């Protein structure tokens, strides 16, 4: 016997709740992972398809966001296996909406530009910490890295952003550590 999600009478309801609660977060996170709006939507779709198939393995709704985020990160990694690309090779595209009415204050544009220029290994933990309030331990678990390594990446991430925003070339940063 293999009880799938469809055997649970409230599986659909539970799934609907996950989609409504987390798709914005996942889409934005996927955008900052992939640098592409189209890829971001595909990643969200694939993530939820996988989540639907394995809904039974989600034990508590409190863990839902981390669970979904982990699925999305794996889907993204799979994409690179398929294309034999290095994660760091990704060029981030500019959002078309940036040229229109979407929050285009100069300071926001400057930060978005600086975030795009940040190596992915610095950007990802920073977003998890700043946007979602994940602790160093939680990020270390998710990335399977020592806590100190995560701390160093976060430290560098902020240093680099500050450096760029202060009008410097991102390449010539003298590490503070």
């Amino acid at each position, binding site marked *: 016997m293999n009880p*799938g999600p*469809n055997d649970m009478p409230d599986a659909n309801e539970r*799934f*609907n709740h996950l*989609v*409504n609660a987390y*798709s*914005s977060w996942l*889409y*934005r996170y996927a*955008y*900052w992972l992939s640098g592409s*709006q189209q890829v971001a*939507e595909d990643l*969200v*779709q694939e993530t*939820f*398809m996988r989540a*639907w*198939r394995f809904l039974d393995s989600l034990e508590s709704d409190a863990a839902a966001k981390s669970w979904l985020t982990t699925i999305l990160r794996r889907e993204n990694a799979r994409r690179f296996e398929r294309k034999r690309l290095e994660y760091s090779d990704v060029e981030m595209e500019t*959002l078309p*909406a940036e040229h*229109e*009415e*979407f*929050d285009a204050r100069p*300071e*926001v544009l400057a*930060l*978005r530009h600086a*975030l795009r220029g940040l190596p992915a290994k610095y950007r990802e933990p*920073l*977003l998890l*910490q*700043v*946007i979602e*309030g994940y602790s*160093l331990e939680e990020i270390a678990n998710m990335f399977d890295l020592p806590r100190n390594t995560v*701390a*160093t990446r*976060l*430290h560098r991430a*902020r*240093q680099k*952003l*500050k450096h760029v*925003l202060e009008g410097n070339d991102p390449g010539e940063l003298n590490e*503070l*550590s």
Partner: protein
Amino acid sequence: MNCLEFRRAKLADPGLDNADLEAHRLDCISCRQFEDELRNLDDGVREAFAVPVPENLEARVLLRQSFADQPGVGLRHKYWLAVAASMVVAVLGSLLVILPDSGSSIENQITSHVGFEERIAREIESYLPASEVQSVLDATGIKAPLELTEVVYAHKCVVANKPIAHLVMREDAGDFTVILMPFGVEEARPFSIDGWDGHIQATSFGGIAVLSERVQSTDRMQHLSDRVLASLRATGD
């Protein structure tokens, strides 16, 4: 604790606090300033992060889920599950609309809306009865009797915050998308956007857009548009 230690700790986790950090903060003006800068930086990251989420993303996720493995459920049945799912979300979705897309043209908005459903429609193997197509038109508020027999997908959708009838039609040459709008279109025009070729024009009930993702010409789209309209007129008079 010295300035370097304070800053190193705060750069890794601005939310971190303990007695040592607190003691240094009280002592050191420049580190207090540094802390403020970091707080501003994180606020900025939060703002920069919030890129616009596509309209109806939730609906598209649920639509696709409703087509996923449901043992023993036939395709026709799945179609109605899909309709039901996206109807539910259409209601929720209207409360959750993230960005009104008022800045971009109607053909831009249509083009960015249609891709997913045209892909979904490829999995549908049979034509819809005319009565089902008609019921979508009725729900959209388009008063036009329609005798179209080549429709594989029909759904009431929302584009530019207004209901539209979204059809996918199939002919030997392949599928194409037809959007019937209960609101006016200013002038007839062809368009080519993001790999979609299409044509848009005014009608007695509002407007029609016909488009396809395959390599097409806008002329051919205009021809298809006229053909769909002819079938409306033939039954309308």
